[in-house]
């Protein structure tokens, strides 16, 4: 993962709350088996509308998304984070994030910065009155700067540290492999194992047919 310290880029005002992950990337785009190449899928339904913010030239090169509360609710699809990253976003600012989305962002190096609603409103006003205005996100100082607005944001210490160091979670966990093995030796025998597989007698399943 690339290290993240500060980023400056065009801010995109997304004046909507409850932006769920079905809006960020509709399910039809989840059929792909790759981890990249989702830029066309980002906000696919909304991008058909010429007035949608990303269809306006000044915001087209945006890399800091400024959204309303409860961003990223719904499905756990990490594709939502991949689509934002593939499009070019480095950070999302919102007053509140859904837990799974925030977790997924942290794993993928997309900064999910929690900014107070009042500050989001001020930033929206600047970005809308002067399209193309840049926003600076400083992870070390936990501040956002947009025009004359300087706001602080919240992010948990652990995610901040991992983003700043560009650390891989799995590598960190595997440093404690001995402790995992020790835990496993104490696992009670009643706890389930999927193998060897047990099941009811195998029965042939009849295929349903289209109604003609």
């Amino acid at each position, binding site marked *: 993962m690339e290290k993240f310290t500060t980023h400056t880029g065009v801010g995109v005002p997304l004046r909507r709350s409850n932006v769920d992950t079905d809006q960020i990337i509709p399910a039809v785009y989840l*059929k792909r088996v*790759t*981890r990249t190449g989702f830029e066309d899928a980002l906000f696919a339904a909304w991008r058909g509308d010429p007035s949608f913010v990303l269809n306006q030239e000044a915001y087209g090169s945006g890399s800091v998304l400024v959204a309303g509360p409860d961003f990223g609710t719904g499905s756990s*699809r990490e594709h939502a984070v991949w689509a934002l990253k593939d499009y070019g976003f480095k950070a999302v600012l919102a007053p509140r994030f859904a*837990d799974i989305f925030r977790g997924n962002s942290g794993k993928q190096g997309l900064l999910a910065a929690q900014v107070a609603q009042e500050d989001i409103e001020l930033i929206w006003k600047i970005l809308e009155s002067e399209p193309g205005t840049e926003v600076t996100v400083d992870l070390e100082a936990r501040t956002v700067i947009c025009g004359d607005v300087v706001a602080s944001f919240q992010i948990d210490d652990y995610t901040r540290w991992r983003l700043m160091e560009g650390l891989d979670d*799995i590598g960190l966990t595997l440093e404690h492999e001995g402790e995992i093995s020790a835990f496993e030796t104490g696992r009670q025998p009643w706890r*389930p194992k*999927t193998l060897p597989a047990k099941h009811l007698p195998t029965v042939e399943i009849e295929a349903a047919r289209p109604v003609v």
Partner: protein
Amino acid sequence: MAGTLAEKVWQDHVVRKGADGVPDLLYIDLHLVHEVTSPQAFEGLRLAGRTVRRPDLTLATEDHNTPTLDIDLPIADLTSRTQIDTLRANAKEFGIRLHSLGDADQGIVHQVGPQLGLTMPGLTVVCGDSHTSTHGAFGALAFGIGTSEVEHVLATQTLPLAPFRTMAITVDGELPPGATSKDIILAIIAKIGTGGGQGYVLEYRGEAIRKLSMEARMTICNMSIEAGARAGMIAPDQTTFDYLKGRPHAPEGADWDAAVEYWRTLRSDDDATFDAEVVLKAADLEPFITWGTNPGQGLPLSANVPVPEEIGDDNERTTAERAIEYMGLVPGTPLRDIHVDTVFIGSCTNGRIEDLRSVAKVVKGRKKADDVRVLVVPASARVRLQAEAEGLDRIFLDFGAEWRNAGCSMCLGMNPDQLKPGERAASTSNRNFEGRQGKGGRTHLVSPLVAAATAIRGTLSSLADLDLGEETDLTTFDGTPLAPLDPRLQVQV
């Protein structure tokens, strides 16, 4: 020290205690996998030269992107077929048990775990799917994870997890006839909002919850995520043990006794404190439906479409205006006057045998409304078999419904089961987001009973709108446990 149910399960899984902002490392008992959120995780393992640490704690099924028709033919959509083939190749390469399309144990992952007896009290259960919260109905700590975390669990069988807060949701009293566990959870989400549960593990308790069957409890825990919660849980009790006993993977003999003894300790202590508490009276509940584009935008069926001008909060008003426009509704219209094009009965929320039985009971001997398409999609192949053994398929077909093979189907519209632009559905699923069931589609979330009544009348309806006749016994609609899916059932083929 006094603890809540969630805290007890958490404590029993700490591999390494975190400090100074570093999260606890938790052991994962059961990892469920499906085709959509796993390919990139397996690819990550391959690129890093890693293996799956515990294939024996991992189970894969095909559900999200599978057809519900012609399942014995090659999948027509090439990208979908590639995704299924990728899961099959990965399962083979990494030695993971997979229940494929056409296999009797295939189905929605959140039905397959419980019906095999793999989901048990006191476990940690994860899956790359937000509705993993379903398994919390057994007193397991179960939550959805992203693909990076799927890879992490595959490689290490653990997850670093940030601490949570606890919320007690008490539902007192008895549900009135015609109201179900779906109405309970829709009412809870409408009350606390789609962000109300953020950062919390919810524990559902109270008389109305205790009286629910396992399947009805699963419906409630399933939709915890729609309130933004990390997970939802219900303390295990005799209902839980009765459901589990005799299932293929349930413990046996001395292991069963040891397990039950431990499971009985899995309840919040009387003096445990929750970070938040919510109380509902079951007697006040009536059939609930959503009118908008998030699961918190719900109202009793007897209400009208909200009038935005009457909403004080700016943000909420704008959200309501946008939702009403997308849904093609007129403010102030009685919800009962809304006509639907499709009724979808299925999903990990309401595609289980009890759901199908309750629908069959309502529609038996009737005909669906002429201009309504009715899809009945069982949550798993075993549920389909049991329904057929009970003759429910005949009831659905005579009613004019389509009887499909198992899968997620129209709940998320990844496969061909989709709404067309502008089409309106009454759906027993869990999300009414814009375009969720197909681009431009409009979704009203409902209980199976409301779905059945709506399919008969063509407009959003409840049992109260039907002339049910004296021979219909309403007592089985009041949340009283019906017989669970019997794992020993000898299916007649």
